[in-house]
């Protein structure tokens, strides 16, 4: 992705990336042409099947598989229906407590101190003053009882309350014509949404579960909750939000998962 003069951001190093390294390695980059990658992928794929060993982590193969995953991002953006609502459920079906999942076990959760916690705002937002949880509690509240669907295949019905993200963006003067919304979390997790998904009526900054403040393992004091994405897109313990036109890479995309992860 081309590096255009990005806005000053807490999400990015203050110094520009040294372009000299790119020039130095141009020769190498040019030798990794498409045909070679494709040939490599086909022969490695065949070897993987015959040998019973797994070569999925091979760099050339990853180039191909991740290129297809990026293509799938574009397809998902094209088929996304901005006004199409996810089904909602009666309160009697709400699962309490919700199901925990993270890139570590529940015992390793480091609770966030609500007293000192602030939500930082960055990028294409007019009002960048950090917000306390009390200020966020005073924003208009939306409630939704929706399914959480995990990429692994499990699901549960949860009852979430908080401020609708579009409403929040209107309050802080965010540029909703920007392409992406990035989230940074207290545990180092990074996540980002395409703007159409961020503006979906069922996307919110959730502060409550089953009408009570969200508990520590599930993202206290603030987490993202969106009905149109797989579970892992719903960042917990959010500490900063940035609105940007520069693609913000994410924890799970770097691991090789699909970025758009729409449902």
């Amino acid at each position, binding site marked *: 992705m081309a590096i255009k003069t990005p806005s000053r951001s807490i999400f990015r190093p203050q110094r520009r990336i040294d372009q000299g390294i790119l020039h130095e390695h141009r020769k190498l980059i040019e030798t990794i042409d498409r045909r070679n990658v494709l040939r490599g992928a086909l022969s490695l794929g065949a070897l993987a099947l015959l040998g019973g060993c797994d070569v999925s982590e091979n760099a050339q193969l990853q180039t191909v598989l991740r290129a297809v995953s990026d293509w799938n991002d574009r397809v998902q953006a094209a088929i996304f229906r901005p006004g199409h609502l996810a089904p909602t459920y009666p309160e009697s079906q709400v699962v309490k407590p919700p199901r925990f999942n993270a890139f570590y076990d529940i015992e390793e959760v480091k609770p966030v101190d609500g007293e000192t916690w602030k939500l930082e705002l960055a990028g294409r937002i007019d009002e960048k003053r950090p917000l306390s949880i009390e200020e966020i509690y005073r924003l208009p509240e939306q409630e939704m009882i929706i399914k959480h669907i995990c990429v692994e295949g*499990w699901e549960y019905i949860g009852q979430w309350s908080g401020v609708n993200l579009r409403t929040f963006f209107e309050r802080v003067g965010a540029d909703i014509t920007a392409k992406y919304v990035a989230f940074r979390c207290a545990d180092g997790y990074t996540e980002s949404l395409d703007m159409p998904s961020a503006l979906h009526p069922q996307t919110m900054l959730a502060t409550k579960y089953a009408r009570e403040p969200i508990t520590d393992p599930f993202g206290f004091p603030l987490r993202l909750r969106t009905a149109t994405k797989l579970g892992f897109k719903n960042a917990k313990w959010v500490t900063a939000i940035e609105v940007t036109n520069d693609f913000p890479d994410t924890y799970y995309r770097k691991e090789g998962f699909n970025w758009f992860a729409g449902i």
Partner: protein
Amino acid sequence: MPPADAVSHHHAARGHHLHPLPLRVMHWINAVTMIVMIGSGWKIYNDEVIFGWLHFPEAVTIGKWAQHGLQWHFFGMWVLALNGIAYVTYGVATGRFRRLLLPIRRSELIAAIKDALRFRLGHDDPTRYNAVQKLLYVGVILAGILIVISGLAIWKPIQFSELLALFGNFQNARLVHFLCMTAIVLFMIVHVALALMVPHTLVAMFTGGPVVADGEAPASAQPEPTH
């Protein structure tokens, strides 16, 4: 011994191979893609099993970690779906399906099953499928269509909520997807085993097999063979 008039090597100019080149290409693309989809699908399944007693051994899954299984599956889906659409379009447009797979008569099916159980099923004429073969081929094509539809419903349960509604809910769609996979795997076991037992059918899928006259009437239009 079935009548041999269906097979003709003298009408090459007005005939076609039993398995024309496009059909063979699509068959082998499908074979490789199916293996990729099944192996990566097992990897994905293992992360949230439908049946507590069933975990697929890691040695037969594709992908080191969960993300690799997903990467392979969502790469393979394009090849499977596009090749599948081409195959079904070809089968319908050229009349191949009608000629080789239809009709399936109940009396023929019962007779063929009885023959099969007595290991007396004739297979000297590779250009004619018996009723059991017809049923299996039609069945696996339908399972292939259903596995794509249920796969789309699992991939996009909200964007394609109308599709999900066909299955009732998300977990049902997963179950249908799994059962289609099971049907396809069982078919593959029988299909590969029989192809190995009657090797000229396997060779035909590489070389094209015997030349069949173009104007040949479908088997159903000919008088019933009297054994």
